[in-house]
């Protein structure tokens, strides 16, 4: 084992220790704040723990999670299935890219949450409408990052491949796609986290279901100890997805580990 490895391990241990100390401090601050503000403003940490046990025990969370994840997975799947190929075609065929680019940018710069009433008008208050809202949010970061990834392929590498006799098709599949990979994964990660946001917003604005629905219900009832449970569940889902994709990126782009 080299000296560098040992140092790396020590740094990691220090990192975890620091995190645990910060977490403990946050809980302490929370506890003090809860005691001085009262349960109508902020429930005590222990109350949230009990609420968590209750809501998991009686199946409330399970049902809500199922509803939310169904919407999320379908919408995110559709965003990927359309967004990545579209970004690739835009990057690979200049005419398509030039034509579509400005419209994508227009939609992306628009505050898309403003389109929720339109989605409700078109698709009603049910699942379809929710899926449409999530796609509206998750789709654009995926297309834009894929497109930019392909577009920003190093020209020198393309020239090198051309000099070895690469055809246009080979340039696209063997160079541009690989060069874009890390950007594509970034797009997927952004899309995934915006998608979670989309699910909650959709559940707030349409028929109240899922984890977002629980948040509104308990919030309106001032049952803040229960209210915090879906909030925490959503945070855990968000972190899991983003860390999972970081891991996938690391596995798919092993050469990046050495580019520090």
């Amino acid at each position, binding site marked *: 084992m080299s000296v560098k490895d040992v140092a790396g391990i020590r740094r990691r241990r220090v990192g975890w220790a620091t995190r645990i100390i910060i977490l403990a401090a946050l809980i302490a601050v929370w506890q003090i704040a809860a005691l001085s503000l009262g349960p109508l403003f902020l429930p005590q940490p222990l109350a949230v723990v009990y609420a968590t046990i209750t809501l998991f025990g009686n199946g409330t969370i399970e049902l809500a999670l199922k509803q939310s994840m169904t919407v999320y997975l379908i919408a995110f799947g559709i965003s990927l299935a359309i967004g990545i190929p579209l970004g690739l075609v835009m990057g690979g065929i200049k005419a398509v890219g030039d034509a579509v680019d400005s419209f994508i940018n227009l939609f992306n710069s628009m505050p898309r949450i403003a389109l929720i009433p339109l989605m409700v008008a078109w698709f009603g208050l049910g699942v379809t409408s929710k899926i449409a809202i999530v796609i509206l949010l998750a789709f654009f970061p995926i297309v834009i990052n894929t497109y930019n990834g392909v577009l920003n392929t190093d020209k020198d590498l393309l020239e090198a491949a051309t000099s*070895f*006799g690469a055809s246009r098709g080979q340039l696209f599949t063997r160079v541009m796609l690989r060069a874009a990979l890390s950007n594509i994964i970034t797009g997927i990660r952004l899309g995934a986290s915006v998608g979670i946001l989309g699910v909650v917003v959709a559940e707030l604005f349409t028929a109240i279901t899922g984890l977002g629905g629980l948040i509104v219900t308990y919030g309106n009832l001032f049952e803040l100890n229960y209210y915090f449970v879906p909030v925490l569940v959503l945070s855990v889902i968000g972190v899991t997805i983003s860390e999972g994709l970081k891991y996938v990126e690391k596995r798919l782009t092993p050469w990046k580990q050495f*580019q520090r």
Partner: protein
Amino acid sequence: MAPKVVVRNLSKSFPLRQGKGYVKLNVIEDLSMSVDEKEFVVIIGPSGSGKTTLLKLIDGLIPPDSGEILIDGTSHPKPGPKMGFVFQSFRLMPWKTVMGNVLFPLQLNHVDKKAASDRAVKYITQVGLTGFENSYPSELSGGMQQRVGLARAMALEPEIMLMDEPFGSLDAQTSELLQVELLKLWQFSNNTVIFVTHNLDEALLLADRILLIGARPSRVEEEIKVPFRRPRWTYDVRSEPEYPVLRRHLWTRLREMVSKSGTFPGVNVAPTVTAPLAGEEWTPRMAERG
């Protein structure tokens, strides 16, 4: 013997931004040269004299404005396995390992899988990178990266090697080492080499013939046969009696050319030449100091 590469009255210009529009910057004008089969030709000239452009034209990466390039008597060269390019900036695929990078041109040209991997191993061994097959370029030093660049170009077993200042971005020691290794590799492969540099010692060590090309718009100003016997790694070429004479001559000619350059068509730039400081080697880049 019929020449391998013939260049006739070649001209190439690029648009140069000037105020609101563009003017034509003539990079190469009416350049003619020829290279024999199995010959090692070094093209030397001041920086900005269109040496890289010339290589790209020969490879068929860019089309000429006028003039003709014949490879084995056939005009309009196309990039492909017949010519292997080694770039100054290496240009390795960062997502491929050493093995993957050397295999890459072979896969592009649909070389049979088994044959390709045999060849890749052979050339990786030849450039001395055995044991590094699974390393990524970012894990290698500059010298090692260029060894990969060499192996990649040679694995195509091209008839012509086009080398664009391949050792120009390496430190002096590494580049001298690689020059000798290139000599050895070339001795065995015996393909035709067109090698661009502005390093006089490199040119004198490697070349059968040196073509001196002038400042923009460039053409061949002078042709110098290099008399040293081969193989040249077995003795010290620099202690040959002709060596300092040739070097002095090249040095003077290059200096003259640089003093004439520095003028773009339509642009007023005073020629700037700096005399070498005492004990300092002259390089064409000095002209850029101003």
